[in-house]
């Protein structure tokens, strides 16, 4: 599928899902025109909406790339959500632990963020390596183990946030807040929970992963394993090690996602049961992007925009938020079926070549 086709697909899916959504909106007695206007205003209507969209996009890009790495290599890491949670939690805990050892200064902030992110990368990488090892050396189906480990991560981190790691004097099950100076600078956008630096980090990770996949033998070995395991083995790739490597890399990127979420968006850590399903949404993002790290960026922008519109609509309209969740679900559903649009295009003579 060409890039152009992918873009067309994303657009068509969104439009179709929105149309269905509008029908439902109208049928339920709300104003569809106002709803549609809200979708656009809420995603890119003004600087604040754009920042909100980019905030969601940043996290989705990272989790999306994490998924893409694994899927590309034929390993179904459905556990990005859990790795993301582990990463974010470890970031906060690490920074809180190290902060007293350094003088409070912006420079220390940078050091702490780097160390926190590094800890997240290690922790989430290890957490992802576990199902990798289990798959490689014990044959445990990674789809199941990673789904299970999502529950485990949420439960354990939830327990830790509630108990041992609850910030002092906190009524809510939250960790303590990160020190004031541990935050990304606000440039261009004023929003407290979005920084262009975070977005840049996400893009940097994309670039690194793209280079890794296309330019290096590690990437070649992984992608080859994904396409055809037997051929990879034939060419000297150690299948088991590659599974572990893949899962680890995927988890490491999920860890970065967790760190960015913790530092840029939240500034502390809370019960992960209430944290968005970025790791699941990432699967849709990655597949829309054909598991191509570069494609993840525009795909995330689409889903980030929808999420952002959702937030906006919940503030500025009476339409129940569940409806927006449902519409996002529909977008995902249609994105999953490009053939639907290809056939439609062919039938209406709009193009789309025979396969």
């Amino acid at each position: 599928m060409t890039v152009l086709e992918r873009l067309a697909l994303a657009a068509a899916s969104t439009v179709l899902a929105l149309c269905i959504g509008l029908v439902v909106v109208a049928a339920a007695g709300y104003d569809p025109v106002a709803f549609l206007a809200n979708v656009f205003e809420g995603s890119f209507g003004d600087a604040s909406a754009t920042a909100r969209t980019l905030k969601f996009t940043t996290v989705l890009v990272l989790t999306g790339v994490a998924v893409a790495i694994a899927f590309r290599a034929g390993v179904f890491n459905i556990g990005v959500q859990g790795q993301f949670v582990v990463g974010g939690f470890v970031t906060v805990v690490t920074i809180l632990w190290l902060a007293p050892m350094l003088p409070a200064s912006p420079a220390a902030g940078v050091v702490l963020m780097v160390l926190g992110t590094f800890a997240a990368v290690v922790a989430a990488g290890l957490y992802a390596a576990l199902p990798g090892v289990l798959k490689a050396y014990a044959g445990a189906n990674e789809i199941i183990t990673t789904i299970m480990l999502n529950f485990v991560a949420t439960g354990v981190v939830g327990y830790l946030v509630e108990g041992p790691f609850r910030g002092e004097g906190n009524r809510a099950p939250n960790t303590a807040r990160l020190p004031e100076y541990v935050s990304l600078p606000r440039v261009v956008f004023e929003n407290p929970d979005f920084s262009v630096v975070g977005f840049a980090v996400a893009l940097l990770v994309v670039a690194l992963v793209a280079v890794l996949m296309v330019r290096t033998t590690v990437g070649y070995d992984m992608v080859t394993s994904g396409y055809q395991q037997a051929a990879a083995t034939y060419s000297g790739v150690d299948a088991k090690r590659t599974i572990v490597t893949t899962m680890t890399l995927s988890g490491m990127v999920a860890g970065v996602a967790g760190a960015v979420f913790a530092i840029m968006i939240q500034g502390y850590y809370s019960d992960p049961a209430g944290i968005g399903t970025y790791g699941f949404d990432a699967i849709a993002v990655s597949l829309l992007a054909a598991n191509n790290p570069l494609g993840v960026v525009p795909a995330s922008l689409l889903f980030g925009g929808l999420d952002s519109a959702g937030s906006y609509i919940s503030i500025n309209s009476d339409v129940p938020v569940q409806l927006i969740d449902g519409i996002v679900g529909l977008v995902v559903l249609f994105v999953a079926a490009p053939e639907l649009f290809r056939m439609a295009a062919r039938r209406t003579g709009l193009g789309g070549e025979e396969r």
Partner: protein
Amino acid sequence: MTGTTQPPAVRMEGITKRFGDVVANDAVDFTLERGSVHALLGENGSGKTTLMSVLYGLYEKDDGDVFVDGERRAFDSPRDAMDAGIGMIHQHFQLVEPMTVLQNVILGHEPTDGGLVDESSARERVVDICRRYDFDVDRYLDTPVRDLDLGARQRVEIVKSLYRGADVLVFDEPTAVLTPQEVDRLVDVMNELTAAGRSLVFITHKLDEALAVADEVTVLRDGEVIGTVDAADTTEQQLARMMVGREVLTERRPRERDPGPPRLVAEGLHVDGDRSREQVTDVDLTVHEGEILGLAGVQGNGQTELVEAITGQRSVSAGRIRFDGEDITGTSRRRRIRAGIAYVPEDRQTEGLVQEYDLVRNALLGNQTVGQFVTRRFVDWPAVRDHAEAIVTEYDVQPPTPDARAGSLSGGNQQKFIVGREIEHDPDVMVAAHPTRGVDIGSIEFIHDRLVALRETGLAVLLVSSKLEEIRALSDRIAVMYEGEFIDVVDPDDVTDEDLGLLMAGRRLDAESRAGSETDAAEDEVES
């Protein structure tokens, strides 16, 4: 056009089938007389499979007519074709591996009793068929297909077609994966079938088989019919000329220099197969510099496992492997590649090439650690591309562009690319498993030339093949494997084909050696 009173079993007229720009069949005429065997010959990609797939309702033809028993028919699906009495034994078997033989045979035509599948009446019918044509399939009806070897699977396919009441049977390269003994059995089966009034189409690359079995032979080239001849009135040379437009001979290629010191040595090797059953038992093997060691044997007697052990894809349960004196028993596949052991794999589709990659990316397969293409783990794609272009040109891969997707190439062209890539790898040892399987004659000759050239430059070559003439033509020594052991190592000049056949069947030559005697080898193949 025909003078017979009976209409032909099948008559195809002006069949045209295109895949995009490729014209796979170009106004092909083809007639299959009742009770006869009609061989279909042609180089790789000449359109044989396509033509038969049209007949079987798998492909929709772009033009032309199909007549069965004189009636004009159009099959939308294999089911239609089947109902009209046409069965096809595919090049790639259409079997469901985890299901039993019986379930596979009756799939889609299950007799039922009160809603449930009536396995006992199905069993009766299948046993009946097996008895009639003297198949051994009835002995393993309850074995899952995945536990069968290729020969047995093929017989299951045949029984399946017969069970469905096929009157016309299309065999697509049935002998490509069979041992000489199995080929003999297949020929017997075909004779039984025609004797019972069935009509057969026999696609093959092997001219002698075509002449031995067929009544008529049709040769295709580039999707067009070159001609149809009576088998009785023609020769191999003539057919070969029709196929490629020149004469081809497989003649003995004795070496021109003496072999050097041993390069690849295995001592007391024991290797387990997939189901952790020992498949290689106490094998000693030495391949010298400047020598081709041929490895003959009925498929499933441990050749695959031995080769995989040597190339580093399978671990060894006991014994040593040495390369230039160095113990490489425990080293990884990658280290062995780097050490210079090249390998043309048995299964080009799943091992030798990544189907979804273009040839550029396939050119890097196995070369991931070669300094020419990779510096500190970074791939130099332009260099890889140059390399792929060189292979494509040198080895006459069609289409002649490295940008073609590997999966879009015909089998023979895939094989040429793999052979080219492995040879260009500049190896010290070449392990070639069935390097010419499914390859057209012109390419066979080319590949043979290359292997011989490798030997002459001092490489140690281990050649595994189920084609006896190939083994005999190329090998300096022939090791025959039987039930995981080297039953004998012989000089090709000292043995006849019959001798080799006997060895492969497990008879030692010093025992009574009567060619063509009954063997019990086949009975053991099921369990492997």
